[in-house]
């Protein structure tokens, strides 16, 4: 018997397999950029416009020959791709900063190629992307919180729509944006609570409840829109938009000032919430508990965490955040509510959750990519680009698909996301 215990344990060293997917994707993208934007590029000049006439400090416009810049950027991208191959050869993961820098360069290259022969308004591109991304960022934060505690939230779409509706409605009838935002928080939370009750108490499949809730919220908002708002839109659906609040001094900085420090309250809240959610999830005791509930509810229960209560309140909080995103859709952007105006942004937020690997920062970055692509479509239309607008619109979804299937692949989310916890 003792011989068995003392027998030497043989460790077979299995080599970590090289993961080529990322390098291959980067290599292909850099070659595409180098060849089509650079070698086959446009010799005309793209005029980079940093600021508009109303800015306190005006930077001069910068004309750049599109092809030259794209060739330079292409070489840098090729170098980064080679660098990623070097990482892969060494059986290491390609670092995230490399992918992000690569993405930024690729986008710059694309913009400069498209803008050849016309102007490239930097502030419009950046601020517009942020504005279009705002509801998606809120939605993806809600998704991250939900999945981190083990509840898959397909109903983000419904929460955005509910938030958008009540924000516009309450702001209109009370003439108070504060009440409108509070109502949006409550609206999003109510949708979330239904999701939470059904998935936690009645143990209904979370994806099914989510899909059904979306249908229900679409039905409800459409009904009230037709029955109440459209009859008397002047009083019930005419909220106006939140004023931009320029932060003194900071908003005078060229480019950065206009992009980050001259925004609406919803955008500032987004700037605060993304790091806050990250900090709470990963740096506090509460966050540890939340993640424990999502990863291993039985273990969390064993150490005295009330799993279902934690899930319920986390999902409710997530719904409030999504409701805020809804407010950003109406009073934070166009003002009035229109039928089904969330138009699938909740689903995009869901994709951002996965693209962002359940991390608030990365999810927000993914949302920003979506915002940019939407904005880019407008920009390409203005420059008279020959790329078909439908194909431009398709790109972010294609990127997500490729990322989910290839780059992200079997990236594992919270282990217990989607599974109800039944106390034994």
């Amino acid at each position, binding site marked *: *018997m003792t011989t*068995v215990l003392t027998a030497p344990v043989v460790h077979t060293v299995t080599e970590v397999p090289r993961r080529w997917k990322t390098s291959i994707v980067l290599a292909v993208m850099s070659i595409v950029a180098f060849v089509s934007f650079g070698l086959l590029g446009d010799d005309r000049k793209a005029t980079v416009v940093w600021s508009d006439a109303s800015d306190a400090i005006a930077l001069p416009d910068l004309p750049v020959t599109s092809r030259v810049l794209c060739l330079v950027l292409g070489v840098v991208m090729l170098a980064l791709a080679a660098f990623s191959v070097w990482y892969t050869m060494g059986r290491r993961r390609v670092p995230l900063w490399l992918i992000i820098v690569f993405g930024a360069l690729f986008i710059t290259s694309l913009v400069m190629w498209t803008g050849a022969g016309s102007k490239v308004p930097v502030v419009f591109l950046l601020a517009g992307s942020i504005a279009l991304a705002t509801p998606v960022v809120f939605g993806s934060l809600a998704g991250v919180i939900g999945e981190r505690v083990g509840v898959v939230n*397909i109903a983000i779409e419904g929460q955005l729509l509910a938030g958008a509706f009540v924000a516009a409605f309450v702001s209109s009838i009370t003439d108070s944006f504060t009440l409108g935002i509070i109502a949006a928080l409550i609206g999003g939370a109510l949708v979330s609570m239904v999701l939470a009750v*059904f998935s936690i108490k*009645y*143990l*209904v*499949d979370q*994806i*099914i*409840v989510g*899909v*059904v*809730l979306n*249908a*229900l*919220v*679409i*039905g*409800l908002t*459409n*009904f*009230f*829109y*037709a*029955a*109440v708002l459209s009859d008397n839109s002047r009083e019930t659906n005419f909220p106006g938009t939140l004023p931009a609040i320029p932060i003194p001094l900071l908003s005078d900085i060229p480019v950065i000032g206009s992009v980050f420090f001259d925004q609406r309250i919803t955008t500032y809240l987004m700037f605060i919430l993304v790091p806050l959610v990250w900090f709470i999830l990963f740096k506090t005791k509460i966050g540890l508990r939340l993640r424990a509930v999502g990863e291993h509810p039985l273990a969390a229960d064993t150490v005295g965490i009330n799993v279902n209560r934690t899930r319920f309140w986390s999902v409710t909080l997530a719904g409030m955040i999504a409701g805020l995103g809804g407010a950003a859709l109406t009073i934070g952007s166009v003002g009035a509510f229109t039928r089904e105006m969330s138009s*699938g942004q909740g*689903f995009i937020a*869901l*994709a951002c959750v*996965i693209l962002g690997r359940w991390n608030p920062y990365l999810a927000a970055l993914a949302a920003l990519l979506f915002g940019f692509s939407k904005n880019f479509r407008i920009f390409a239309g203005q420059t008279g680009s020959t790329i*078909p607008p*439908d*194909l431009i*619109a*398709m790109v972010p*979804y*294609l990127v*997500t*698909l490729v990322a*989910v*299937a*290839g780059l992200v*692949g*079997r990236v594992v989310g919270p282990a217990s996301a*989607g*599974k*109800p916890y039944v*106390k*034994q």
Partner: protein
Amino acid sequence: MTDPTLTPLAEIPEEKKAPQDDRWSTFLRDLASGTPLRTFLAIVVAFAVGAVLIIVTNEDFLAAVGYIFSRPSDAVSAAVTAVGDGYGALFRGSILNLQGDTFAQIVRPLTETLRLATPLIAAGLGIALSFRVGMFNIGGQGQLLFGAGFAAFVSFQVHLPFPLHLLLAIVVGILGAAAYGALVGFLKATTGANEVIVTIMLNYIAFYLISYLMRTPVLQDPSAGGTPKTVAPDVSAQLPPLLGGGFALHAGFILVIAATVLFWWLMERSTLGYRFRAVGLNPSAALSAGINVNRIYILAMALSAGFVGLAGVNQALGRTAGFTPTVDAGIGFDAITVALLGGSTAGGVFLAGLLFGAMKAGGPAMQVADVPPELLGVVQGVIVLLIAAPPLVRAIFRLPAPAAKIPRVRRRARAAEGTVSK
């Protein structure tokens, strides 16, 4: 000697998987065995909720509420009239128009219901198939667009005599959608990508791809200018009207009846259906039983999308004009609720499709009666919400839980052994 601790360790992953599979199977069994009574009650509750909404948004009622304490009968009668008008219009618009003069006018609403139910049933069958295999196909919209796009392409780019042309367009449409669906199964099987996200993304990709093609000579009507619109199908590729020219109902309904029978045979009688159900109930057990689960995923998604593609074919060929990228008209998403309401069975989906078709047909009549037809969206949502949560309906009507006895006995037995902590 073997280490005694090895055996339980090796078994842990299996046990870990079990609850999820079990939950799905319980859920599906619950859906499939959903008693007609419960479904009926869910529909009743949903229409009651709808009635409340009609009442609280009715102007006569709101005016009468102002003096409810002096004359409550006014408010009551206003409420009854509002609900009666609304639901009366729904009946008139979807089943029988008793105000009609001729027989044709009286039964026309019913034929409209059948026509509008056709794509819902076809797409519902597709989504139901994916449910039965334990997958969630949210890509109805994209698959429908692909089916419609392929069918439209054949319907005016190829020129053949009548039955052949129609048949070819139908087959190509279904195959186009099926290939698109197979891609989802392929991605799930090879890369492990979550089919929910993949199908959602593919919805958008399909929408923009088809929109793009509708702006190019591949699909675009030359007279449409810059807007995306297809050429009208050749007469030889149109689904012929069933009841003569006076009615819009066309042969697509016959196709859908055939599809329902095929679905029933496939899922309940064929070997392939048996494998589908086995994978749906417990993938790991199916794998152990020698079923190639990955191949089943691909095949099931292809077939699922094929049924949805039939809905697209119906939309593309059941008309005499071209169509725009909005041809989906929400059918792709409605199909999910149809499949849920129908318990993912052939007969259930057929009936659920008829119900939802009736709601679509009755909408315009409700609009005329000054009740927003959007109300029906709420009713549909409430129905499926209640269907999805059997315990809730049981709680509302105090119905007995069907399988409540067994766990209670088990709990008692375990309590007797002293293994239950709380």
